[in-house]
């Protein structure tokens, strides 16, 4: 069991890559930087593959497999070991992260080829891989938190990669600060967990839970706090605002961090803490509501965006909403399933978009594109596949996962019609704006100056990952295919131990009911179910709008002017935040903390002490006559005084 016994290798590889590139890469040729960065990540992926192979042979009683490497800190009862664990959930996450990460590394070597700070970019990227893997392999909350914050850091660094561009720098700060708000909740949650369970080890916590010793109220609070963290990290309402801005970063970053991996950390965390959530129905409901609303809400914004990456960003937000919806209704496996497929097709979408932008020479506005299908065939086809996948057209990955989510939302134990409706509506919108994107980009007449922009297909090292991911986007969901024809759901079955072992009895059999094997009518129902219908409808509407009669959108926009501007300005949420939170904060910081506390109090103390010392020195320096003999006299006076004292003591002592 070489890897299982040395889980740390998986972490050390990218870390080493980051260190080497970051320290030495500055003067290296790109080829060598590539070798280190891609090499380390590829090795990590191979290690993960080996890990999976070994994991397969692992007897089930050894799962989750925990490796304890060193004691990090001990403070009284508070003891943190650096422990890593492997179970089914981890395996899925590991595979997804490592695989997509590797592909995106390869893609980046092409995309970033002409950028400055090449070594820096890859160093950050490797570092991100390290933290992400830490996050998913962590066996206790603190180590997980390390990964959690680490990915946040890398996201900040990479969003602000072009830190000379103000908007980029601001976006980085925005992302960092916004997620901080959530992380605060997460931190408090972790502390509360320790306070409640006297431990931060997953295993211990869950066993304690199984004993049913903790009141539901406490659990609810804990779960809401943790979920706050998830909301921040996974860009849910109301903390989603940073994600669209994060598109300032290089496109591979958007693909890797802000679509495939990091933003899903929240979902992963909720899934990881499922025993807690399962015992806190209110928190569950909250999760579900937030997820559903976000899914719909973000989709509506996505309708009118013109920036190709912005559209993808909002679709990401809404897809994450679906995942939370799934978790919220108690079908974590569905959430994780969608997470994986989403990683494939959303990553693919971003990479393809990046390829488009690359082709257009940096142009991101879809209104200035069009008719690229013939010029960039690979990009076009891969992107089309991804779009079909995300739209949930049967046969593609997205269909299975999203369909499952909606199904459990509808039929699952804590199913809820409102949520279901939101989900379906969101699906329709998704299909609409995704095809809108495709039509605007690849069909119709070129709306750009062909003499200046020479559109060209991207190089191999960019297109190959596209193809691979396209394959993933098609077949990534087929684990669940047999289920539709009444067979078992392999993915769900695989993850079951994680989600049922500690789950409260009520939940577990409910989950059974939710995915109970059903007759072939199931297949028909699924194929003709609402999700598919709305998806197709969305497709057709998009076609009617943007291919049939392209001036329709404008008319609609003018007729529905109010709604249109509202959407265009993303419901004025940014403005709202600025008005409600940022400005008062700034005011307080400036007037109270800065001018008041800092200048008035602290500087006052410092300068005052200095002034006192100065004055005293001014008095005392008169003694410093520079005349040796006067110094001698002072010494003499001291000696005499001392001697007098001494003699007095002696005399009294003697007599």
């Amino acid at each position: 069991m070489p890897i299982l016994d040395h889980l740390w290798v998986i972490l050390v590889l990218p870390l080493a890559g980051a260190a080497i590139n970051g320290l030495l890469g500055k003067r290296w040729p790109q080829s060598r930087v590539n070798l280190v960065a891609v090499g380390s990540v590829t090795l990590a992926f191979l290690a993960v593959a080996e890990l999976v192979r070994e994991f397969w042979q692992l007897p089930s009683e050894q799962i989750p497999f925990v490796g304890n490497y060193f004691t990090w800190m001990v403070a009284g009862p508070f003891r943190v070991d650096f422990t890593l664990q492997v179970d089914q959930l981890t395996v899925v996450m590991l595979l997804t992260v490592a695989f997509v990460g590797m592909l995106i590394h390869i893609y980046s070597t092409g995309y970033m080829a002409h950028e400055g700070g090449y070594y820096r970019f890859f160093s950050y990227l490797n570092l991100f891989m390290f933290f992400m893997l830490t996050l998913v392999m962590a066996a206790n909350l603190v180590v997980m938190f390390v990964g959690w914050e680490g990915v946040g850091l890398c996201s900040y660094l990479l969003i602000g990669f072009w830190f000379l561009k103000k908007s980029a720098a601001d976006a980085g700060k925005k992302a960092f600060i916004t997620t901080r708000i959530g992380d605060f909740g997460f931190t408090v949650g972790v502390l509360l967990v320790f306070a409640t369970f006297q431990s931060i080890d997953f295993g211990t916590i869950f066993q304690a839970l199984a004993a049913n010793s903790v009141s539901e109220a406490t659990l609810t609070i804990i779960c809401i706090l943790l979920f706050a963290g998830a909301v921040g990290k996974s860009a849910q309402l109301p903390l989603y605002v940073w994600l669209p801005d994060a598109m300032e970063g290089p496109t591979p970053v958007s693909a890797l961090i802000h679509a495939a991996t990091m933003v899903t950390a929240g979902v992963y965390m909720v899934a990881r803490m499922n025993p807690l959530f399962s015992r806190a129905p209110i928190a569950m409901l909250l999760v579900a509501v937030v997820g559903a609303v976000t899914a719909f809400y973000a989709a509506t914004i996505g309708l009118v965006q013109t920036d190709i990456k912005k559209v993808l960003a909002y679709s990401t937000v809404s897809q994450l909403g679906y995942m939370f919806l799934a978790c919220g209704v108690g079908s974590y496996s569905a959430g994780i399933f969608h997470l994986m497929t989403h990683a494939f097709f959303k990553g693919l979408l971003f990479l393809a978009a990046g390829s488009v932008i690359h082709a257009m020479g940096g142009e991101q506005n879809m209104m200035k594109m069009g008719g690229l299908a013939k010029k960039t065939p690979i990009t076009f086809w891969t992107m089309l596949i991804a779009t079909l996948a995300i739209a949930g057209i049967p046969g593609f990955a997205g269909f299975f996962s999203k369909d499952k989510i909606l199904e459990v939302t509808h039929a699952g134990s804590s199913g809820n019609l409102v949520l279901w409706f939101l989900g379906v509506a969101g699906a329709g919108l998704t299909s609409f704006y995704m095809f809108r994107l495709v039509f605007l980009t690849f069909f119709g007449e070129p709306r750009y100056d062909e003499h200046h922009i020479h559109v060209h297909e991207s190089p191999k090292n960019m297109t190959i990952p596209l193809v691979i991911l396209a394959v993933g986007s098609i077949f990534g969901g087929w684990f669940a295919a047999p289920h539709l024809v009444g067979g078992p759901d392999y993915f769900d079955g695989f993850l079951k131990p994680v989600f049922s072992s500690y789950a409260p009895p009520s939940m577990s059999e409910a989950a059974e009911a939710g995915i109970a094997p059903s007759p072939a009518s199931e297949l028909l129902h699924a194929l003709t179910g609402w999700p598919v219908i709305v998806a197709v409808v969305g497709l057709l509407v998009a076609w009617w709008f943007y291919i049939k009669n392209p001036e329709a959108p404008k008319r609609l926009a003018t007729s529905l002017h109010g709604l249109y501007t509202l959407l265009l300005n993303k419901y004025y949420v940014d403005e709202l935040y600025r008005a409600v939170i940022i400005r008062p904060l700034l005011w307080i910081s400036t007037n109270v903390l800065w001018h008041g506390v800092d200048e008035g109090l602290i500087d006052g103390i410092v300068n005052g002490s200095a002034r006192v010392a100065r004055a005293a020195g001014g008095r005392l320096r008169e003694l410093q006559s520079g005349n040796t003999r006067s110094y001698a006299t002072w010494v003499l006076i001291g000696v005499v005084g001392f001697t007098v004292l001494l003699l007095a003591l002696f005399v009294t002592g003697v007599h």
Partner: protein
Amino acid sequence: MSIIPVSYYLVLSAVLFGLGVIAFVFKRNIITVFMSIELMLNAVNLAFVAFARAHNQLDGLVFVFFVIVVAAAEAAVGLALVIMIAQNRQSLSVERMNHLKF
């Protein structure tokens, strides 16, 4: 043969030391100031020897030995300094050497 109380020696030593102090404070010439330091050291040595004799121990004498050694070193460096000073500003008066002040 009668004995001399050790206190006699101590008094003598104290007197010499005091005179040394006075010399240190009064003398103008930096060299004589140095000499007054030596004078004080001698006074201390006398006290050492007297005590060594009184308690019939040798440590006092050893201390005297060390004092002499240190005095020698001090004289070497100090006089070198004096020479430097005298060369830099043509005066040996301590009062002229009051430049090291605010």
